[in-house]
């Protein structure tokens, strides 16, 4: 999966993955959250909520 941005929104993360905007829960069993964690491990940062 190609994560291009991520920002906290309440309990979830608003992320653009493979060109689609998703609300992603912080659940380790969610495949999109796993992709975001890999993206963060690669040196990227989840933006704070507005």
């Amino acid at each position, binding site marked *: *999966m190609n994560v291009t941005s991520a920002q906290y*929104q*309440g*309990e*979830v993360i*608003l992320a653009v993955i*493979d060109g*689609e*905007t*998703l*609300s*992603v*829960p912080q*659940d380790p*069993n*969610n*495949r*999109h*959250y796993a992709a975001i964690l890999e993206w963060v491990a690669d040196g990227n940062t989840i933006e704070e909520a507005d």
Partner: protein
Amino acid sequence: MSKARELAELGAVYDSGALSNRNLVINGAMQISQRTTSDSSISDNEFVCDRFSLRTSNAGWYGAEQSTDAPTGFSHSIKFESTGANSPAAGAYIFFTQKIEGFNSAHLEFGTSNAKTITISFHIKSSLTGTFGGSVRNSAQNRSYPFSFTISSANTWEYKTVTIAGDTTGTWIGSTNGIGLDVIFNLGSGTNNQGTAGAWAAAGYLKPTGAVNLVETSGATLFFTGLQLELGTEATPFEHRSFADELQRCKRYYQRIGDPSNTQRVSDTFGWTTAIILPAFLWPVEMRATPSFSPSDGTGGRIEGNVAANSTSISSNVLSKQGGTLVVNTSGLTEDNPYMFSMAATYYLQLDAEL
């Protein structure tokens, strides 16, 4: 097949403890396609028929569609078609797979001395002939069993079975909502991802050595349906479940809320601010894990009360396996005033908890 033979096979199935709910595969008859029924250029991790993940390191090398070309006893199949004559690199991965949830495969007891034998059966038709294959793999992708089968006649439906002695070593997820096992069919993976057929290996192989790669022949086709994975040494007739039952099972992993034909009034709520309502939902089916949420677009939502307005964007700020709260943005609302949230026909909300 003789009656005596049929009774002997039934006895073997009974001994395995699987006279009902035998098939661990969901949507094996390819009847359910909630997302789309066709995509001529597949990217990695797409779905056409529910629960079958289409994987590719090379986007656009094949297309897929839900087809009504099916063998006797089936109404649908999934069709793959190669878009060119491509040579996969050694590390390429090109395959389709169903990941079976640990809760549904724990009784196979893989990774223990009690590991059970499983049998995989399916119907397949291809414009190519030769030795094709796939594999069974664990979640850590460090145990796999490449298997092969032969397609003898081009463009002819054939029935195949593969029996695999369970893996007594390695780490296999037990009774959890993670990946219990991965059933893989090759479409064009590279040589780094191949291993000896008919043996367990300490690697995450995707195919047996020398298997035919569909993507290497322009316009080559492959149809596939009736996938069954069951406990025991015998391939029993495909377990046809009702459409409703199969759809409910699929919705544990992915579901859409919305009616393609009618406007739906889906939730009563109130103006959180002058620009936001927060309609709450209970999902029709509890999901495997907390799902990701996305709307088909941001502007198909409708807010009705002392004003009527379309949404400008929709997201979620609270999600769980059973429900969630949407953040619907618009303008011109009155704080604390009651509003109804509705969705235009063709508009939908999608929830994804796939493995």
